[in-house]
């Protein structure tokens, strides 16, 4: 399978199954687009005749020979022979956890998928003992995996900060005995940040996700305090202080992470605001996941505007990269040479199999987005239960079981999309959401084009 596209003046071909990316001239692009499958040894005469109206036969034959050469090298129309790896993750260790340390929040963001923090199950903080049991669960279910990830999530994790510290201390005390390395992260809205917890986060958390939507008017339209006031003026100085101190330390990773909605389809302006006016250089601004009936939900009619915005952002990033002063944009980051192996790419995030969420009550769910939906409860820490049948269902969900993925060029970049999103919209983890797919494909095209442009001296 080959995907061709024209973007920002570049004619690009992606050989899907090998991952090879080629930049073509227009003649080559036009010629390649005549083929849906492997090139025959001899140039098909009807195509030669057709294209010779625009190009010389000599040139066409020359280009065809080059394409044949790529095909022979396994870099064009290469085979999809990865299906043999699909069962490889059945029985995989659990090595990654989203720990819902707080089912309470001090903001009332309009688009919150967690029902303003309590996931529809009542406002609760996780007891320290439950957190310690979650650590024990990871230690004993992670098999030979050395790196264990644990994200403190909510609600707002800083509302249960003392518990976070005790749980981190407990986990660290077990690392040597179990030969494991915990990588902690935290996702925070910033309201309760102070000097003490900033220093702690910067010392202990490998990554920190700072929720901020962009321009003050955009942020304050959606991210509201309980009293209805916007959060921008409270959180921005705290985030800036955190990042300034963080960059002096060992753990430098962070993301200023925003959500865009139908209300700010000009979200590139929010990206520039976060980068230029606020000084952050690690950014992620993502489309809202919302019921289509919500007034701020992104709908199909928004796609042309969103595509144009992504393209504009990509072109601006190239300009800045060439000047050596660009920010990172999470969804345009792509590693064409040494990214994840194809085996990882068959099933994506690993939720429900290698990755689970744990609630304040010790309930286990496939991921944070399934929390609160009883149908997807996988077990409980106190009962020491875990639904292996459900775990296997996730282990065996992959790009070959998901509707439409096998024949989609983007399958090794999105890995079949978000299971929770699929279930939420289509009531089936194996049925991807068309709208999300469309946006993802555009982002991946932009990401590849940026690589192409940066290789263009």
């Amino acid at each position, binding site marked *: 399978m080959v995907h061709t596209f024209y973007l920002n003046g570049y004619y690009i071909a992606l050989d899907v199954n090998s991952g090879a990316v080629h930049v073509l001239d227009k003649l080559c692009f036009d010629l390649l687009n005549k083929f849906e499958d492997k090139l025959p040894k001899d140039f098909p005469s009807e195509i030669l005749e057709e294209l010779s109206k625009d190009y010389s036969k000599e040139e066409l034959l020359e280009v065809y020979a080059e394409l044949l050469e790529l095909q022979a090298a396994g870099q064009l129309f290469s085979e999809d022979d990865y299906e043999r790896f699909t069962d490889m993750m059945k029985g995989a260790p659990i090595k990654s956890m989203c720990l819902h340390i707080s089912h309470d929040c001090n903001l009332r963001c309009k688009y919150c998928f967690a029902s303003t923090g309590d996931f529809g199950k009542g406002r609760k903080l996780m007891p320290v003992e439950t957190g310690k049991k979650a650590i024990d669960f990871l230690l004993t279910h992670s098999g030979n*995996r050395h790196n264990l990830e644990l994200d403190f999530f909510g609600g707002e994790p800083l509302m249960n900060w003392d518990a976070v510290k005790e749980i981190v201390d407990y986990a660290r005390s077990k690392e040597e005995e179990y030969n494991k390395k915990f990588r902690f992260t935290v996702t925070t809205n910033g309201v309760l940040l102070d000097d003490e917890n900033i220093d702690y986060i910067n010392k202990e958390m490998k990554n920190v*996700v700072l929720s901020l939507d962009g321009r003050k008017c955009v942020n304050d339209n959606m991210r509201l305090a309980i009293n209805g006031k916007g959060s921008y003026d409270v959180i921005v100085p705290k985030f800036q202080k955190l990042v300034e101190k963080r960059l002096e330390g060992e753990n430098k990773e962070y993301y200023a992470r925003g959500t865009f909605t139908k209300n700010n389809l000009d979200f590139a302006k929010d990206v520039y605001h976060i980068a230029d006016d606020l000084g952050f250089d690690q950014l992620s601004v*993502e489309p809202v996941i919302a019921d289509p009936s919500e007034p701020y939900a992104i709908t199909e009619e928004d796609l042309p505007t969103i595509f144009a915005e992504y393209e504009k952002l990509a072109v601006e990033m190239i300009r800045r990269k060439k000047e050596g002063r660009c920010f990172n944009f999470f*969804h345009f980051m792509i590693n064409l040479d040494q*990214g994840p192996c194809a085996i990882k790419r068959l099933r994506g995030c690993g939720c429900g199999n290698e990755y689970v969420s744990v609630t304040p009550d010790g309930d286990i769910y496939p991921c944070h987005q399934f929390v609160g939906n009883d149908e997807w409860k996988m077990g409980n820490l106190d009962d020491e239960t875990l639904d292996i049948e459900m775990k296997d269902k996730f282990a065996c969900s992959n790009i070959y079981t998901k509707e439409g993925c096998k024949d989609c060029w983007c399958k090794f970049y999105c890995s079949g999309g978000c299971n929770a999103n699929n279930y939420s919209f289509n009531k089936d983890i194996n049925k991807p959401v068309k709208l999300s797919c469309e946006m993802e494909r555009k982002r991946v095209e932009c990401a590849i084009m940026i690589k192409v442009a940066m290789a263009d001296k």
Partner: protein
Amino acid sequence: MEHIKTVNNANLKESCAKGGCGECQASCQSACKTSCTVANQECENESRKNNK
């Protein structure tokens, strides 16, 4: 080649030889939490990286 420039080395096939170790980050843990892009994750398989 006159008409084609290859930007990267095709390596998705080779990646399977020492792949599937499971040490890399769950993509959802990195920055997004609501949507997936897996291809931007870093490989953490030392033997595969050293083989580069």
